[in-house]
């Protein structure tokens, strides 16, 4: 109940106030300010929901393991640039552990890997976008579990969306307004990265999805999680 009230106050009073305040002070960079506020405040309701709902210690630890695996995956495949299992694991977490867990997995992977690779103004955006990918996968889990091709398509699209969203932030930050020319230029220069994101998501989902499901199933049978 308390969390619910805090959430409502946050959503309807504090966040709009912060945004208006920032627009007044940072008039020239209002868009960048708003997008940063949205990214940060967008994460909060998901975190609070997870905090409230999750009571099972074992599930908490499993989520921690999944986050650590997706960060560790960045080290394993470091010999291939941008070829990372992160999104695949976030998507699978969302599907098998619920949408809140998917969001937390995505957001925390971004946060922790930036503790290692360097924090920056991009951290809230990565947190929000990866979180949203996990959350979406969790919400669509019925379709994605039934249709394997759809899962692969979801992975590839998630890779492309991730890149496009990060470019929106870059554009706002540079220009203060949405400069279409710069946005397109950003997308084009990031094209190789985007393609390798999409391809790596596809490959990892293709190979990991089924064994991953089996492994979690096995945990359920063996330990009754």
């Amino acid at each position, binding site marked *: 109940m308390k969390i619910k009230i805090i959430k409502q106050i946050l959503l309807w009073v504090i966040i709009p106030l912060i945004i208006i305040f920032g627009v*007044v*002070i*940072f008039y*020239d*960079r209002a868009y*960048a*300010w708003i997008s*940063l506020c949205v990214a940060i405040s967008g994460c909060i309701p998901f*975190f*609070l929901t*997870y*905090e409230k709902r*999750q*009571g099972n*210690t*074992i599930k*908490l*630890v*499993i*989520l*921690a*393991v999944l*986050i*650590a*695996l997706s*960060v*560790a*995956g960045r*080290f*394993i*495949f470091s*010999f*291939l640039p941008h*070829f990372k*299992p992160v999104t695949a694991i976030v998507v699978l977490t969302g599907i098998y552990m619920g949408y809140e867990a998917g969001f937390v997995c995505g957001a*925390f992977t971004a*946060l*922790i890997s930036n*503790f*290692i690779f*360097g*924090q*920056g*103004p991009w951290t809230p955006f990565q947190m929000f976008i990866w979180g949203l990918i996990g959350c979406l996968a969790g919400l669509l889990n019925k379709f994605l579990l039934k249709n394997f091709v759809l899962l692969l398509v979801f992975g590839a699209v998630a890779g492309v969306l991730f890149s496009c969203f990060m470019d929106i932030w870059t554009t706002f930050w*540079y*220009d*203060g307004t949405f*400069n279409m*020319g*710069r946005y397109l*230029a950003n997308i084009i220069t990031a094209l190789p990265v985007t393609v390798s994101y999409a391809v790596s998501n596809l*490959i990892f989902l293709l*190979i*990991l999805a089924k*064994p*991953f499901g089996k*492994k*979690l199933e096995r945990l359920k049978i*063996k*330990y009754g999680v």
Partner: protein
Amino acid sequence: MENRKISGFNTLHPAVLFTYFVSVVIVAMFCTNPVMLFLALIGGVSFFGVMKGAKLFFQDLCFYILMAVFIAIINPLFSHNGVTPLFFMNGNPVTLEAILYGVDIALMLVGVIYWCKCYSEVMTTDKFLFLFGKAVPKLSLVLSAALRFIPLFRRKLKEIRSVQSSLGLYEKKGMINRVTAELKVFSSLITWSLENSVDTGASMKARGYGLKGRTHFSVFTFRKRDLGYLICIIVLVGIVILGMSMGISDFKFYPEISEFNFGLKQIAVYISFGILSFIPFLSELWEVIMWKYSASKI
């Protein structure tokens, strides 16, 4: 990690440090006034230099100067605002305002990146967890468990790799073989870690994790010195934000560059922000001087 020194600013209370970094980074990130951006940049760079030593500092600086020049050159290609065209390229004007705005953006970007690097150095994960652990205990458990698992998994990964390579996994050369081999290793890491984690979770549950009345261990205490710093930071940020909201430090690039104003009010805002961005550097410097002074008395 290995060249992290014990220093004056590092040992402040995490709440003070977090307030400080958030306020400086936000002002540096969203204001367009070149004077303030320059102050922020110099403050951040000098703090980083004091913390990391000269060698690493110059290596980094060269890279960022190149990046800044690149950003400044690129900006006029996308932005044709401004009233002073210098020349035309492909029928589009390249304006003085756009170039100067590019320089401004470059100042901001490099400044913010340096502040973020300082943040990463100073706000280590234990401080971060201490700050947010009480508000979201379950999530902070997930975060700290994940942080602990990463080195564990990397060690386990080495084991799996060496076992598999003795079984002949890595013999075939070529990129595709390498990727499939690593995937196999990754898959067995997933299995091992999931099984292992359930044991951890069950053991935590058996010891009563999540029951009421649990206390946290922390090494951080809020001292008088922290209070002093906190008041100082809040007053300075207050002056800066008040100044910005009254439009004192407004600076426009488009369509025409505003003139620099150095009235009494502007100078007050600049000085407050200058002091704010030099707090860490000055406190490090103070420590060094005090150390030299007390060493000379022995």
